[in-house]
Structure formats: structure tokens, C-alpha cells
């Protein structure tokens, strides 16, 4: 891979208590499916991010298991209901064992 995968996350800076809001995430990754063949006819080995985990204050709130059918530069959005201020930890787990992490603060105020 040419560049290190860079996660991009959009979390609203401030929300009201009880508000349900969308979190949008994107990470640059080629998501090599293991189905393609190179010019010599050899199968290009699979290398994808196989799991995305969202945690809030250390507690897992959402998980997605990705298969090779997920597009390159995978996008994932989901919802979260605001209760208290804290910090999100988003983790992307690569086939090669590496983790890509992004931390985002959330402020809950009336």
C-alpha cells in the first residue's frame, strides 16, 4: 500500500441529551478482495479491513464485520443516542493485524 490508511470521522461537536445523531466514518484502504488476478494471472492476495468497532467511553456501541464485498475506501455510518459527554474510539482492524484508530470527543449539553 502506498499510504497508511487515514480514518476520517464526522461526529457533531455538541448535541442535546437524548438526541439521536448520525456518525459518518471513512477510511482510505484499497480493500483488496482476493478475487482479482494480476496481469500474470496470479490471484492478488486478500487484504481488507475486516472489522469496524465503535466504542463510547470504553463500551462497544456498534460493530460491523466487513467482507471482501465492501468497496475500497470503506464508508460506514450509524447512529448513536446522546446520554453523556465523553469520547468515541473508532477502530478498524486490518487482515494483516494492524489497527487504525480514531478518537473523537462528544459534548452533550442542553
Amino acid at each position, binding site marked *: 500500500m502506498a499510504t497508511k490508511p487515514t480514518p476520517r470521522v464526522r461526529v457533531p461537536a455538541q448535541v442535546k441529551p437524548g438526541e439521536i445523531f448520525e456518525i459518518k466514518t471513512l477510511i482510505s484502504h484499497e480493500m483488496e478482495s482476493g478475487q482479482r488476478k494480476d496481469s500474470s494471472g496470479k490471484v492478488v492476495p486478500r487484504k481488507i479491513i475486516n472489522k469496524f468497532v465503535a466504542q*463510547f467511553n470504553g463500551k462497544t*456501541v456498534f460493530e460491523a464485520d466487513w*467482507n471482501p*464485498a465492501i468497496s*475500497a475506501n*470503506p464508508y*460506514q455510518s450509524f*447512529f448513536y*443516542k446522546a446520554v453523556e459527554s465523553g469520547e468515541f474510539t473508532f477502530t478498524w482492524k486490518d487482515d494483516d493485524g494492524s489497527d487504525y484508530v480514531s478518537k473523537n470527543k462528544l459534548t452533550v449539553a442542553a
Partner: protein
Amino acid sequence: MVWNSIETTRREALGLASILGFAALLAPRMSFADEQTVAAEIKKLYGDKKLESGKIKLDVPEIAENGLVVPVNVEVESPMTDADYVKAVHVFADGNPLPGIVSYKFTPACGKASASTRMRLAQTQNIICVAEMSNGNLHMAKANVKVTIGGCGG
């Protein structure tokens, strides 16, 4: 056989028509094998449990021009409380080399059982979505996506 030939008898014409009819019958059966794979995947997860319809809003484009990037949004109707929430959602495709697309695990903290991502589709096919509720009930939804350019590379 020459189409405009005067020798084209009624019998020949009927024979040709039956061949064409047979081919038309065969076409949907070719994807049938893949439908079986998806059914097998669902069976692996949940056994022979009944799949109810309703509750799932599976949002995919009717026609995808580029099979490499097809948006897919799933929303399951649920109050998302500790007593009643959506535990998991699995998305499958019956015309890809591998049936699985994505599996979500929701918690009541989500507030809303909805998630979007983008997938690759090799050809025109059905998207099948199964949702598991916290009380063990299963729901299923299905949608067809017509793919103009397949997203398998190769």
C-alpha cells in the same frame, strides 16, 4: 435453419420456440445456486428459524451504474430500548463470488438501528438482509439491484 426460407415448417418454428422458452426458464435457475449459498449462510447462523417479513427498510439503488461502489442502507424498525432492540443485521448478495457483504451488531445505545455502507456487486443480483431482534425473532428483506458495470475487476 434459414429464417426467411419457405421451408420453415410449423413444426420447426414450434421447436425453436420451445428452445427459446427453455433458455428463458434456465436463466433464473443459474442464479438459483447462489441463492442456495445465501440460504445456507443464513441457516449456518440461525438454523431453520422462521424468517418474517416487514420491519426492515433495505435501501439500495434500483440500477447501479458502477458495481464497484453501490450504496446500501439498512434501517430496522425498533424502539432500541434495553428490553427490545435489534441485535444484529446481516446483508448478503446472491450473485457475488462470496455471499457475505456485511454484518452489523447494534446495541440499545445506538438509539436507531440504521447503518449505511458501500458495497461491490459483480452483476445484477438480489440483496438479502436478515435482522435478529433481541427477543430472537428474525426478519428478512430482499431487493434487486441491476448492475451496469460489474465491480469484480479481474
